[in-house]
């Protein structure tokens, strides 16, 4: 192995003089603290010029000295993949946070991410003599009720023949589960675990079609107005205080996914603690099991080392791709990708690279693009499907969407959920602006076909009609602001208030109310039909004062319906009252 000596230190950028070959992104360990209390710090090669190798250290470099020794590892940053990842809390380098001792994170403390002693009940899926290739399913174990497939390691190239496979029974992750013979007749042992470099996409699938299946989130402003698909990509930009994190939490709690991976990348520690606290208690609305059973948390909060922030998003994506290869639906949420971009900026700055816009590295949008491209809905080689849906938040500096991270992301993400300060100020949560936001999927014919089968063929036209009412309402509001309440005809007020009904009843949703926070698709359909029924009717009003007063009562009743259990007697009671109220003023056509 190549070794080296520290030559220079600026914060966490360390220059090393080496005695042999090194490769870009290779991992190295630097010994700090002298011989008696030596601690090894993990670092990654980010630039090589002549004999000088620049590494970014994933920890504090306090006390590091010139001449300290460096050992290169001959591989890139890798994660260990195998059963037992679910329910764990990792840092950005896949250290199990629960295994770390002490209240404070001590630098240089690394651990193995899985449990080597736990027994898993293995069932073989392949048979002796089968021809297999990378990612082929050899068997499965039950991991928190998910069929965790034991696969041919992704790194194995070419075709193999199964020489032997373990019988059904209890095994540990390091036991040999199968022996595979390659074309040259050489045998390879396969255990339940494998390693994969995080910066390389796992490409062991047959094809990646355009996403078309709705990923239900229970959030009306997403599912109804701007749906995201399984394997789709979306991003949520928003100034601070507009509810980015609450929105992400709601999605991660409610989305209809088999596996949820939360990458807390450079954000607040207390938000991660909220997830740690709530997820073991809360139930998955789809299966009734605890949310934590299907969740993996990669926590690299803002006070944890900056360099591993970058690693954390790749670690999360690699784990997501691993589960996708098992034919599962994975939802990956990263909060926030801006912090990752800032970590890149800090390093680029220390390396004295010529800066791009706002001092970000020049290749920022290419890096973002390549990362989003790893999401997707795939057909595996065995014909099964799997998906990684990726939702990232962006924290635009000063709330200005014309900044490099937002712009770079907008080019690649297919759904855009624009959080708006004005909506948040008026407590109209979720503060997703219904007019600026979009989902490209709603334009895909394959999605239209799918949703027609799932709901009905009137769904997309109805949603588009709803958006038209919203757009019209916004225009009228601007006119009223200019001309005054009595400067416009009464029917302008009527149309404005129809858009308010849509806003209050469909778009706004109380994330902290037990009933209102999750709206299943059937209920979304029911409410949308009620609201659109209200919008399509004409009303008898003498003056504009009556309009506001009347529609406020309409909104109040609809909101009470939203707060009641679907189809309960309470719900139906409010619905009766609503009907009576509508009968008062509606013109029967």
């Amino acid at each position: 192995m190549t070794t080296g000596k520290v030559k220079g230190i600026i914060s966490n950028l360390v220059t090393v003089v080496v005695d042999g070959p090194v490769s870009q992104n290779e991992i190295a360990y630097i010994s700090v603290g002298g011989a008696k209390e030596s601690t090894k710090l993990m670092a990654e090669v980010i630039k090589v010029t002549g004999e000088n190798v620049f590494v970014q250290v994933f920890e504090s470099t306090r006390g590091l000295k010139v001449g300290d020794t460096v050992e290169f590892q001959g591989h890139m940053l890798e994660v260990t993949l195998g059963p037992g990842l679910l329910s764990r809390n990792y840092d950005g380098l896949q250290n199990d946070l629960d295994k770390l001792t002490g209240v404070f994170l001590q630098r240089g403390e690394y651990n193995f991410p899985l449990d080597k002693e736990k027994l898993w009940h293995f069932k073989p899926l392949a048979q002796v003599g089968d021809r297999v290739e990378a990612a082929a399913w050899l068997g499965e174990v039950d991991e928190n009720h998910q069929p965790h497939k034991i696969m041919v390691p992704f790194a194995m190239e070419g075709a193999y023949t199964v020489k032997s496979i373990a019988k059904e029974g209890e095994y540990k992750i390091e036991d040999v589960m199968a022996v595979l013979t390659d074309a040259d007749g050489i045998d390879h042992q396969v255990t339940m675990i494998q390693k994969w470099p995080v910066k390389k996409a796992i490409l062991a699938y047959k094809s990646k079609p355009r996403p078309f299946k709705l990923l239900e989130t229970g959030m009306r402003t997403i599912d109804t107005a701007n749906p995201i698909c399984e394997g789709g990509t979306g991003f949520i930009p928003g100034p601070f205080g507009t509810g980015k994190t609450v929105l992400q939490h709601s999605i991660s709690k409610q989305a209809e996914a088999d596996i949820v991976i939360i990458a807390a990348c450079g954000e607040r520690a207390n938000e991660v603690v909220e997830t740690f606290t709530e997820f073991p208690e809360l139930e998955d609305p789809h299966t009734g099991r605890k949310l934590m059973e299907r969740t993996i948390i990669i926590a690299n909060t803002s006070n944890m080392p900056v360099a591993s922030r970058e690693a954390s998003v790749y670690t999360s994506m690699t784990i997501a791709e691993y589960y996708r290869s098992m034919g599962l639906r994975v939802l990956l949420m990263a909060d926030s990708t801006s912090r990752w971009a800032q970590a890149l900026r800090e390093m680029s700055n220390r390396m004295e690279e010529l800066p791009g816009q706002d001092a970000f590295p020049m290749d920022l949008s290419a890096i973002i693009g390549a990362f989003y491209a790893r999401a997707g809905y795939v057909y595996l080689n065995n014909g099964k499907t799997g998906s990684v849906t990726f939702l990232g938040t962006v924290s635009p500096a000063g709330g200005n969407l014309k900044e490099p991270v937002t712009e770079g992301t907008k080019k690649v993400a297919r759904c855009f959920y624009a959080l708006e300060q004005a909506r948040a100020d008026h407590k109209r949560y979720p503060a997703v602006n219904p007019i600026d936001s979009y989902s490209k999927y709603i334009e895909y014919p394959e999605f239209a076909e799918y949703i027609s089968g799932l709901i009905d063929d009137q769904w997309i036209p109805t949603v588009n009609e709803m958006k038209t009412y919203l757009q019209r309402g916004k225009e009228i509001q601007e006119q009223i602001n200019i001309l005054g309440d009595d400067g416009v005809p009464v029917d302008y007020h009527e149309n404005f208030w129809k858009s308010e009904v849509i806003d209050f009843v469909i778009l706004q949703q109380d994330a902290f109310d037990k009933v209102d926070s999750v709206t299943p698709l059937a209920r979304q359909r029911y409410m949308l039909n009620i609201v659109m029924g209200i919008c399509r009717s004409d009303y008898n009003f003498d003056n504009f004062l009556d309009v506001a007063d009347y529609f406020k009562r309409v909104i109040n009743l609809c909101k009470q319906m939203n707060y009641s259990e679907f189809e309960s007697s309470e719900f139906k009671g409010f619905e009766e009252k609503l009907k009576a109220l509508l009968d008062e003023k509606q013109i029967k056509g």
Partner: protein
Amino acid sequence: MAKAFQKIYTQITAITKATCSLKAEGVGNEELATVNGKLAQVVKIMGDEVTLQVFQGTEGIPTNAEVVFLGKAPSLKVSDQLAGRFFNAYGDPIDGGPAVEGKEIEIGGPSVNPVRRKQPSELIATGIAGIDLNNTLVSGQKIPFFADPDQPYNQVMANVALRADVDKIILGGMGLTNDDYLYFKNVFANAGVLDRIVSFVNTTENPAVERLLIPDMALAAAEYFAVEKHQKVLVLLTDMTLYADALAIVSNRMDQIPSKDSMPGSLYSDLAKIYEKAVQFPEEAGGGSITIIAVTTLSGGDITHAIPDNTGYITEGQLYLRRDAEIGKVIVDPFRSLSRLKQLVAGKKTREDHPQVMNAAIRLYADAANAKTKLENGFDLTDYDNRCLEFAKEYSDKILAIDVNINTVEMLDIAWSLFAKYFKPEEVNIKQALVDKYWK
């Protein structure tokens, strides 16, 4: 001062306004040194050339200055003796008292493992309804006042500190004017709480770069009391904008490429390292907590500037003060202020109707603001508009003003009585069950 084994260097090769460089060996990153007696810290090492940041500035440093490396990072001696004392940025007493005896700990130490934290869940009551009702504070939270320099943020902060039920209050003053420093000293002394207070103060009379040590000093002391003494600690940091300005000065003098608003590219991480020291420990770890209330002064109310912007992304909300011309008092602005942790206590540690009452009142207050715009534009107001305006005025006076000092039940009762006075239940949009129970 140099100990026998310490090598003295006397050949400085480069001097800038904030740094000096010399050839030296065996030096650790971030190690402290003295340059002609002035404290300095290693910020860059390249081969045998070491660059030191001199906290007091490099005025008067000669090329043959004596440089001694101290073999340690900046540190503070901690013990119960800290209580009641005033220190400078280096942790040396400035109140004329003796030096503190105790365990020496490095400042700016490692972060708490997130899985060893507890979710904050204890309300910190301040009596100020604009905070307790609309923006409830929780122990373990970090929250700044975003204020223009002329607003009475230090006074409000001192009030909050004195009313809050905590074991220790640690003041980190950065670029405090001498007047404000004396103000804090007097307020704390008059309230008879000096024994609960530890202060680290850098006034405008001290060199700007020294400020960089203040938050780490204050938080090292806070961690000592929270971790080892299991105490509830409240840390006051004022003014973090001046801290960030000092960061910019240093980064500028080290020829780093500035990012937005001339701030260093690492501003977010630098601020996060400080604010994330706020923590609630679980019972198993003694149940101590660190709560941070800071001040970020704004320039003309501009929150898109890099300092408030990055702060807003790190802290758990922000509090704004505003002078309300209608009632002639300073109020806590209900629109822009936000405590992100309030839902952890609102309706749980307080009465069940708290979240809905809070939101309804703010919605009506927003309607009043719209009505006011209409009025200013010369349009006729509706009956509803007029009622909103009347409501807003009384709400401002009885709830939002910073001179209010009542408990949360009283705050909620006042809000319900104002609803009943000006509105019908369906205009308030609160869950029917709560209306049935509390409508007055």
